């Protein structure tokens, strides 16, 4: 599924977060979104499935505008867009299985057997079959985030949005989550947009890197160009800062 931003403006009160943003993302493309904190990366992500309303412009997902559509149509579109949040946002009152199967039951009305088959499959893929009947609070941060990934993938989305999915994790747990993401993203023909600070990881999965500052896209292009030979000064400065600790 392709995504298109047309002259999108987004405000939080007086704060102007996205400025006349134009962007088109092709079906199956893997996009990495980088930029300093507060530059509007996560907001851009949340605007795609209309979790955040925009003030002007239009966002087209597939063939449909998520800005000017009915609630029913929006719910249909959202079923095709999986999202994984920085803080996991799992449901603490449910077990791992119930977390993963909830939308299958409530939204897709699948029978329990089919739901169960699908949830076992994705939980296997993220390596958590043995935790299927545990409550979320009994898992480590990395395991919780892998459940969140399974919860997004079990709906078989055509678009996957990943919002700084390792920012809330210890460095040693970051690796286990990124390994799972790399494998799952590579073997699926879906559009992926990920906001991340993991520059090395970006190089492994991205088709295109987009660098944003203050709600504006400063530079975008293939990995080699943006991450290795950036044209813009602001991109160079940013990359210097985030990679400083690696050298």
């Amino acid at each position, binding site marked *: 599924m392709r995504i298109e931003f047309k002259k999108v403006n987004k405000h939080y009160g007086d704060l102007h977060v996205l400025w006349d943003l134009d962007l088109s993302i092709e079906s199956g493309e893997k996009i990495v979104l980088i930029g300093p904190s507060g530059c509007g990366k996560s907001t851009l992500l949340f605007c795609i499935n209309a979790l955040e309303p925009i003030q002007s412009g239009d966002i087209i997902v597939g063939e449909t505008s998520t800005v000017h559509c009915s609630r029913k149509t929006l719910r249909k579109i959202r079923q095709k867009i*999986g999202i994984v949040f920085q803080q996991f946002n799992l449901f603490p*009152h449910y077990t791992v299985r119930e977390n993963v199967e909830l*939308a299958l039951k409530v939204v897709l009305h699948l029978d329990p057997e089919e739901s169960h088959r699908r949830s076992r499959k994705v939980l296997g893929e993220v390596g958590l079959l043995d935790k299927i009947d545990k409550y979320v609070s009994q898992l480590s941060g990395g395991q919780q985030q892998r459940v969140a990934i399974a919860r997004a993938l079990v709906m078989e989305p055509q678009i996957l949005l990943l919002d700084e999915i390792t920012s809330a994790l210890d460095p040693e747990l970051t690796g286990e989550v990124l390994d799972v993401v790399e494998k799952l993203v590579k073997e699926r023909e879906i559009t992926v947009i990920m906001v991340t600070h993991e520059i090395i990881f970006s190089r492994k999965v991205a088709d295109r890197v987009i660098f944003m500052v203050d709600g504006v896209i400063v530079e975008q292009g293939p990995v080699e160009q943006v991450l290795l030979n950036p044209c813009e000064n602001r991109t160079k400065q940013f990359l210097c800062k985030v990679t400083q600790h690696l050298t």
Partner: protein
Amino acid sequence: MEFADITRWLFRLTPYDILLLLKGGLVTLALSAGAIGLGSVFGAVVGWIRSLRIVKRVRLLWWLTSIYVDTVRGTPLLLQVYFVYYAIPTLTGIDTSVFTAGIATLALFQGGYVSEAVRSGLEAIDRTQWWAGHSMGMSYLQTLRYIILPQAIRIIIPPFIGICLGIIKDTSLVSTIGFIELSFRAKSIGARTLETLPPWLFAAGVYFVICFPISKWSQRIEARWRSKG
């Protein structure tokens, strides 16, 4: 006085008086159930309305519900009982019986407190839980039903039980307008026999027997929820 004498004195209630008190206890139980039932449903609706973001933004409904909630919580229940029973018929011409005035006042009182417990419980659930539901294609009601309410209920139940225990004991205040329930019976038996303490102690025992199991039950389910993580 020996211990045996004291107990004999305390139980110097005739079987007939005991029967009257037990009947009063049943009335108190029914009155409490009615007030808690009606008041909780009404309060839950008010609390839910007050938790909506649109209501906070538009303000009108917020102010209207605030007048109700703050009046109920800011004035003594005894005065509210007097107001509904004595003032409303004078002001509006609608005659209220002891029964309707009593149960309506208690239900409104219960509703005011429950609404705040429900509102704060719903608001305690992080906005990102709504996001998680919506992002999977769930509607407002589905998200409320499957994600928000099951979590909010665990926050709402402890204060809710406290409010219920309070209203059960506060039903005694409607005896002042002549509602014949447990406290009314105790007072009249005391006046008739000139032995005030025995009927009142018996009545206190009946209140305790009603309240104690509820309190214990709430502690049990809280413990069960805690162990579930």
